[in-house]
């Protein structure tokens, strides 16, 4: 998403691509572009079957509406992954019918 910042007359063209902001010349611009968009990357960890020593971290394949975050957590409360799991592997498809997958961010063998 690219937008013109309206905080000051400088009117920077600011873009937000997958949460990476560029084009802003100050922190107010950063704020401005982030507030226009209520979607954020979701990260968390899930339990690993037969392993109570560590959990598997994951991220969402795309940004998700912040309002859905509590539902994602609830959906994953009893969810477990099986080893081995590799970075980039989908561990949960189409979470809450958003079309967005949850992707492992760690190798666990």
């Amino acid at each position, binding site marked *: 998403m690219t937008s013109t910042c309206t905080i000051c007359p400088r009117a920077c063209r600011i873009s937000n691509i*997958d*949460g*990476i*902001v560029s084009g802003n010349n100050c*922190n107010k611009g*950063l*704020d401005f572009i*982030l*507030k226009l968009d209520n979607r*954020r*990357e979701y*990260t*968390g*960890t899930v*339990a690993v079957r037969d392993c*109570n*020593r*560590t*959990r598997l*971290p994951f*991220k969402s394949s795309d940004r998700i509406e*912040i309002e859905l*975050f*509590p539902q994602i*957590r609830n959906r994953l409360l009893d969810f477990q992954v099986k080893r081995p799991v590799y*970075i980039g592997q989908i561990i949960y498809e189409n979470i809450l019918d958003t079309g967005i997958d949850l992707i492992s*961010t*760690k*190798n666990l063998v």
Partner: protein
Amino acid sequence: MLKELVIVGGGSAGMAVALEARRLGIEDILILEYLDELGGVLNQCIHSGFGLEYFKENLTGPEYASRFIDLIHRENIPYRLNNTVAGIDGNTIYAVSPRGTYELESRAIVLATGARERSLSSILLEGNRPKGIYSAGTMQELINKLGIAIGERIVVIGSGDIGLIVSRRMVLNGKEVVGVFEKESRPSGLEGNLQTCIYDFEIPLYTDANLVEILGKDYVEGVRFEIDDEVLEFQCDTIVYSIGLIPERRLILDQTDNLFIAGNANKIYGIVDEVTKNGQEVAREVFNYLKENLND
């Protein structure tokens, strides 16, 4: 057994030292890591925002660590997990493994032991020290690595990036963060983190807030802060503090010429990309030292 280079710590700094040292031609390298995996604190920093400088990509902590772990494996650089270094004396390293204690000799030693968190007890404070007070790093480790989320109503002391990120993590785990309290007049975390951790979740943020008292005898029951010349009381069952990091170099008794310090053990860096770069620089210093002292 005399090694060329032993690196104490297998986090971002230690791995960067090892890889750059190997690239420069140092063959006999060993990493000693006290946890059961390489990657250090990155493995509990499951949020993204890492690697924007070094890789020009937005990675999570475990992803950033894995890039280097893969290279360590590809280069066949030896490492020992669950091995804790207990002391360093000149060229001698005293270590503890699950099988017992042992000694190692190394021509050069790099301390890449990261940082520890400043303790709340470093703030002079009257009153009790009830149960229910955790550092932000401990809380992050408990939630992200072990799935244990302690407390229901949580007060966060300190508005540095770690405090902000852990505040969001607790909210994502269904907790109520009563407020983030900062003693300075401005929050100290990055603007982006303020937005995505605090404002996104409508967590109250108090500045110019001085901790006056922790309430509760056995368990935390609340806190008192002085805010704008007024003492306000907040009920909570847990306190999380994030009041700064201290370079972890308690292993240094004697700064000998063969001892080098890399990453956060040297100074606290704002981002991990800089830790990686520093590790590479330290490896070059080690390389020059070993070259100049070939006959030692």
